[in-house]
């Protein structure tokens, strides 16, 4: 018995021993947000190992960091969260000499960023959160948030479990700004979400992708690229941008204070903006990398897709989620009331 145990322990030691010599880059990212073969390519080029942990909302990521998860090298927050992290001295200033590829960044999108000079953050991808449905199962589709009121889809719909996105959708539906600080508007939006909630199967940030692909859900609220990845596998899934406007998120790459491999982290950010890498990545994840040099390499049809490149009239109604400072509490309270409502 004791001898067997020793053998087993040696085996465990063997497992720990191998592969640890190379530097390890810890990345904290959204799920399905980077082409896996590009990560392999980076590992080979820089002789390192990339370990990716995933999060499903900015708030969840931030809470994890605040609850002691230190040691990540590169994180992918949305720009409003970048602002919050800058305010809390959680980020390292970037060394632009190590990231020459920021010259390729699209100035149009850079203007949406919280950190326009890229002092702390470099834009990674652009996304929007709209609706998707099963064309084979849902009839009479109108491109509007009001689809969530459809009684015939009761129990087969999901919305994001993300307070800013979901309250934001209701605010857009009502024609308000999704960065409103007006309590009455927010309470009106709350009542709309509570009404929708009665038709929902779940508030869900990740399962919706598989759910709509397998026909478990018929209408879901989700991010454009994630849905387009699903469409690749299941042709009956269709994404649309509601005509009332949507939230646009600019997700960025940052290096937190306490990163163990800051130099490698810079290389990683730079690598992601090599035009050919950015193009390949966009063609895989279906989110737009705001990299001008990459545009020429991306399939024109994809680049012109109205779910990636919003139509001007919808774009005019859409907004980027901003940090609201102390007024965040207002959203937390509204979100609590939504969650608690029967």
């Amino acid at each position, binding site marked *: 018995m004791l001898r067997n145990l020793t053998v087993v322990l040696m085996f465990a030691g063997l497992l720990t021993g191998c592969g640890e010599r190379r530097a390890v880059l810890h990345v904290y990212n959204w799920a399905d947000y980077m082409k896996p073969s590009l990560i392999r390519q980076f590992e080979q080029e820089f002789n390192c190992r990339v370990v990716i942990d995933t999060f499903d909302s900015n708030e969840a990521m931030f809470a994890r960091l605040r609850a002691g998860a*230190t040691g990540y090298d590169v994180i992918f927050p949305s720009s409003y969260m970048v602002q919050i992290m800058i305010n809390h001295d959680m980020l390292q200033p970037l060394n632009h000499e190590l990231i020459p590829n920021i010259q390729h960044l699209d100035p149009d999108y850079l203007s949406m960023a919280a950190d326009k000079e890229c002092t702390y953050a470099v834009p990674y991808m652009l996304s929007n959160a709209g609706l998707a449905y099963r064309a084979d199962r849902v009839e009479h589709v109108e491109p509007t948030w009001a689809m969530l009121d459809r009684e015939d889809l009761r129990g087969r719909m999901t919305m994001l479990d993300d307070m800013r996105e979901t309250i934001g959708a209701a605010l857009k539906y009502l024609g308000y700004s999704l960065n409103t600080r007006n309590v009455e508007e927010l309470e009106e939006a709350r009542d709309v979400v509570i009404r929708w909630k009665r038709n929902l199967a779940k508030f869900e940030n990740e399962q919706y992708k598989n759910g709509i692909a397998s026909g478990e859900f018929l209408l879901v609220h989700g991010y454009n690229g994630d849905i387009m990845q699903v469409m690749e596998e299941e042709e009956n899934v269709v994404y649309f941008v509601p005509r009332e406007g949507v939230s646009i998120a600019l997700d960025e790459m940052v290096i937190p204070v306490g990163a163990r491999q800051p130099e490698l982290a810079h290389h990683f950010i730079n690598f992601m903006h090599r035009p050919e890498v950015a193009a390949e990545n966009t063609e895989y994840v279906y989110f737009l990398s705001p990299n001008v040099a990459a545009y020429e390499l991306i399939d024109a049809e994809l680049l012109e897709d109205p779910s990636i490149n919003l139509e001007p009239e919808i774009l005019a109604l859409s907004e980027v989620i901003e940090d609201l400072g102390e007024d965040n509490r207002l959203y937390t309270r509204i979100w609590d009331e939504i969650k608690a409502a029967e």
Partner: protein
Amino acid sequence: MKRSRIPLYTTIAVLVFFYLPIFVLIIHSFNASRFSGSWEGFSLRWYIRLFTEREIWYALRNTLIVAFSTTVVSMVLGTIAAFALHRFNTRLQRVHYTLIYTPLVVPDILMGISLLLFFVAIGVQLGLFTIFLAHTSFCVSYVAMVVLARLQDFDFSVIEAAQDLGANWWTIAWRVLLPLLAPGIAAGGLLAFTLSIDDFVITFFVTGPGATTLPIQIYSMIKHGSPPLINALSTILLVVTFLIIWTVQHLTEDERTHENA
């Protein structure tokens, strides 16, 4: 006198209830279809894909590191604790018993959050080490309880005989007590090992960058797709579990035959 048939029917129904989902899962792991709805022919592709998924191997490695360290440490601590509980009957042991017993019944989520807050308060870096500390904290109690149960059937005259023969404390512990208790300790260790491998909730709270264990990996697979992969992985885990249970059964059975002899 005729006995009621209700107990028999309930037992059959419950066993069907227990195994139905597990069988469906196993069958589906051989389904070629990506979605569990329909059957599209027999295939081993998910098993093959499983072996190329680097994340799973990485998670397995982490799980084993934690499980082995947890098992060893909780076996030592638990056995010593059981011995103390059994040998002495003092107020200290009553407190000690409460301390050992309570973690067994506290819901996982409470242990998870309290340990997370503790680790944050003292500023420990979250990771495999904190997972190990957390797992050991609940496994000690299980090992102690299993070994304590064995000690209660234990004949202490053996020890007195050894003492009469002039053996010192250390010799008694190492030469007499340990071999006699070995099956109990091993059973406790296996229990600790399985509990550590299976724990999700507590691990979820105290995990840190890169410290993904198998249950955390399974959870994220459930959350974002690849059900056939989970089916295949589950089937493998089920087979491994059966083997472990079989071993445990074997260990205890051996002992019973000895006792009877």
